[in-house]
């Protein structure tokens, strides 16, 4: 199907489960429902495997006065984009938020396109802020907007190139299929992270910037690393042969181990004749093992795209946890952030099955949380019930130290400052803080959303 600019429009192959979900949406008469569409893009076509409506934002007791003339104006853009960000943290590698859907009553259908356009650009901007890896030439930057008329159930599917703020809607195909992702192979690996990040200056802004710089250096190393998938180097355009014939009836999903091999080279440092010495007010170490996953579609994927997917998951998972931890810190410690010493656990990653498609989603558990908390979050964010037994917490084990003794902080590379860590650790058990329940409660939810935005702006401006 030839689009307006003479280029082929995008084709979206959508799992039937999504059709079922969209069909089951209930919208109050006269109102709109927004939601996310998630899946995987490839140069030729896109695959949608998940649809989730925007969770209900509990009102402050009184019904919110209508802001504008139409319910479209009432769409809480901030809330939609925050939901998108939270969900994107829950998607393993290879998967991302591909777009948005909007259900409106027939009288609003004309203006729906504009609303979708505003939303899709705002969402992409928010999600991609602070991302540590760069888009490559071949990344698809089209995002889909799906409009559904609540009465006729008619679908209007378009896409926008979110890289170009001036782009206009391109027509796109929306096709339902069974088992779109049923035979997508899954790449996995466990990655050891050991980062030493010096902190210069003493304000929390400095801490954030230092952390960001340190993570970015590490992310570049990962991006440049050699990747072996199933023992073969995945570096070129050769087809990524997973060794399994496409068969929608098979229920076995192939699991392929990936291995990442890095070099310590940083070209800007290599030409120096002397060491880089910084006077620091402290340092931060991120240490531990992260478990990573990525899915690859099976429509002739290239080997290096598979490598890219798992590498991006590695970078995202470390980055997300640090972000979440610092957001939490901001709430709990306020302006004291960055000045205290100690070892604290970053949230650990757990996996759960995605509604119907058989892929998995992930979430992050703070040390004082349980699988019940995770199940609750999955219900709110992904609109699906997950039995607690289905949540796999075995892939990353609990951090073994206790903040009191500090004696388990073992270093193979000791440094002068270790003794200070031990002596300065807060006495007694750390305050048991309930990690922010993202959408529980009234004022807290709003405050958190706002603070999260503020932190992100601070952190990644």
């Amino acid at each position, binding site marked *: 199907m030839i689009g307006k600019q003479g280029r082929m429009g995008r084709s979206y192959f959508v799992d039937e489960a999504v059709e079922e979900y969209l069909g089951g949406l209930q919208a109050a008469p006269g109102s709109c429902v927004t939601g996310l569409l998630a899946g995987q893009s490839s140069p030729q076509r896109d695959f949608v495997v998940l649809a989730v409506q925007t969770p209900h934002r509990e009102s402050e007791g009184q019904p919110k006065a209508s802001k504008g003339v139409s319910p479209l104006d009432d769409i809480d853009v901030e809330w939609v984009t925050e939901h998108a960000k939270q969900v994107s943290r829950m998607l393993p590698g290879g998967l991302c938020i591909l777009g948005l859907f909007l259900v409106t009553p027939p009288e609003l259908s004309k203006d729906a396109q504009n609303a979708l356009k505003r939303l899709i650009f705002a969402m992409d901007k928010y999600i991609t802020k602070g991302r540590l890896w760069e888009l490559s030439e071949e990344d698809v930057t089209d995002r889909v907007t799906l409009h559904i008329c609540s009465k006729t159930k008619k679908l209007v599917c378009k896409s926008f190139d979110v890289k170009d703020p001036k782009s206009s809607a391109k027509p796109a195909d929306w096709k339902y299929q069974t088992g779109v992702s049923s035979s997508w192979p899954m790449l996995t*690996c*466990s*990655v*050891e*992270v050991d980062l030493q990040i010096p902190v210069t200056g003493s304000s929390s802004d400095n801490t954030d910037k230092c952390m960001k710089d340190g993570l970015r250096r590490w992310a570049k190393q*990962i991006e440049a*690393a*050699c990747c072996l998938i199933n*023992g073969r*180097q995945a570096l070129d355009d050769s087809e990524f042969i997973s060794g399994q014939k496409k068969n929608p009836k098979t229920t076995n999903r192939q699991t392929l*181990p*990936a*291995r*990442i*091999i*890095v*070099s*310590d*080279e*940083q070209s800007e440092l290599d030409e*120096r004749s*002397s*060491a*880089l*010495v*910084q*006077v*620091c*007010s*402290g*340092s*931060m*170490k*991120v*240490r*531990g*093992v*992260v*478990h990573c996953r990525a899915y690859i579609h099976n429509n002739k994927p290239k080997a290096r795209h598979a490598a890219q997917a798992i590498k991006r998951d590695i970078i995202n998972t*470390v980055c997300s946890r640090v972000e979440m931890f610092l957001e939490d810190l901001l709430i709990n410690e306020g302006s004291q952030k*960055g*000045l205290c*010493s*100690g*070892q604290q*656990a*970053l949230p*650990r990653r757990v996996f759960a099955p995605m509604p119907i498609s058989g892929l998995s989603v992930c979430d992050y558990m703070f040390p004082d949380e349980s699988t019940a908390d995770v199940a609750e979050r999955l219900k709110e964010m992904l609109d699906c019930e997950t039995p607690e037994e289905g949540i796999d917490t075995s*892939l*990353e*084990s*609990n*951090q073994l130290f206790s903040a009191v003794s500090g004696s388990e902080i073992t270093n*193979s*590379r*000791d*440094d*002068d400052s270790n003794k*200070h*860590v031990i002596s300065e650790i807060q006495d007694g058990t750390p305050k048991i803080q309930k990690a922010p329940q993202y959408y529980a409660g009234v004022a807290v939810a709003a405050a958190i959303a706002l603070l999260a935005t503020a932190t992100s702006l601070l952190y990644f401006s």
Partner: protein
Amino acid sequence: MVHSEERDIIFRLKGILEFACQLENPNGAQSQGTISKSFQGLRSKVSSKNIVLTVCNSPILIWPNTGFRSNVESLMEASSCGDILQYIESDDSGSKKSSKKKDKKKSGPTAVNMKLLFEVTEPAGNEAPSLIRVSTQQHCVKMPLPLDCVLSVSTDESLATVCTGLVEALNKQLADMEEVVLRYRKGSSFLVPQPFHFQLPEPAGFTTVIYPAGVPDSQLQAAREDLHRRFKLPSDRPYLRRANAFHFPDAAYKDGYLRNPHIHLNPPNIEDAKLYLVQGVYSYHHYMQDRVDDDGWGCAYRSLQTICSWFQQQGYVETAVPTHTQIQQALVDVGDKEPRFVGSRQWIGSIEVQAVLDQLLGVTSKIMFVSQGSELATKGRELANHFQTEGTPVMIGGGVLAHTILGVAWSENTGQIRFLILDPHYTGGEDLQTITDKGWCGWKGPEFWDQNAYYNLCLPQRPKTI
């Protein structure tokens, strides 16, 4: 040096390891211990299961510390290391067509380049990450260590032995680097330890020395004296200056000048003659190079440049080869020429060459005068002696031409002589094939000289220094 029938392979393993440490008090007594501990950590890293060696331009990956694992099934512990060669894709695209033909004469070892990498997957534990914050004032030191180890083996040596040898070499190099870092450290100022490889006469053989970056050769005299003693090297000529470092066969010279074009020539066929040639490495300088159009007047300047390049590459001087302008300025500075000489196209002769070598390089030269070109045929003994003891290129000027003599083929019995000439009058590009085919670098007989003109030869003398 006689090569055995099995070709030698030089395995060269390079990689960057980041050295990092935190010093509370860089001038305090504890800092040395902290630095040593960091180096110890790096030695552990290199001995760990996580290190991976890759052979450049090939798909080969080897895990040397896990009982030898490789991603290429046919390469196993006991495989001979020569088997690696078939997996390497050579990139011949850049090399000149000519050198492929001429290189058959060169029988040298093959260099296999390897890179040091680290695997971050397959970790020992699976403890989820934590964030450790320390807030004491400290100096954070980061320095990339440019590891560069060399192992020279015969092709049938087993891969396992090669890998073990390379890992040992890495460990030793880290220990050597630690020594250099500690010796040259001043408070929180650390100099990067850089490895240099030297092909020394027996018993030392192929040796790697670590020098601190940024410290010029002139300030490392004492270190070199010590090494000369240790390696039993003569104390009157340089072996361990940075410029003396071994040039690996596959490394290109970045400046684009040809090195030693004479080695591609067949020696002249004279009965009973011995060859007395220039020692070491020089660059071929000639007309029109460096975008200077000196066609018709610059031949002596170019010969002088060739000689300067020899002193630079043998490690006697660190200054770059002088330009025409710098040469002229030097002559003005010593009072030999008027200031307006600079920028002119005036010729120079052997006496000026001698003066410039003295002024710019601190090199003294002997002048040999020959009243008639025909007499040069009788100078075989002197020239042979010169190439044997000094081994420097000789500038010869006479008639209206200047040339460089790189050696003689001389028979003590018959007196027959041929001269190895490097001709600065060549105006083309750095094309080895043309230069050797057309005799721009070639063996000439006594008839090459203008039989009636007088000639002056400038014979540069090696300074007695290490």
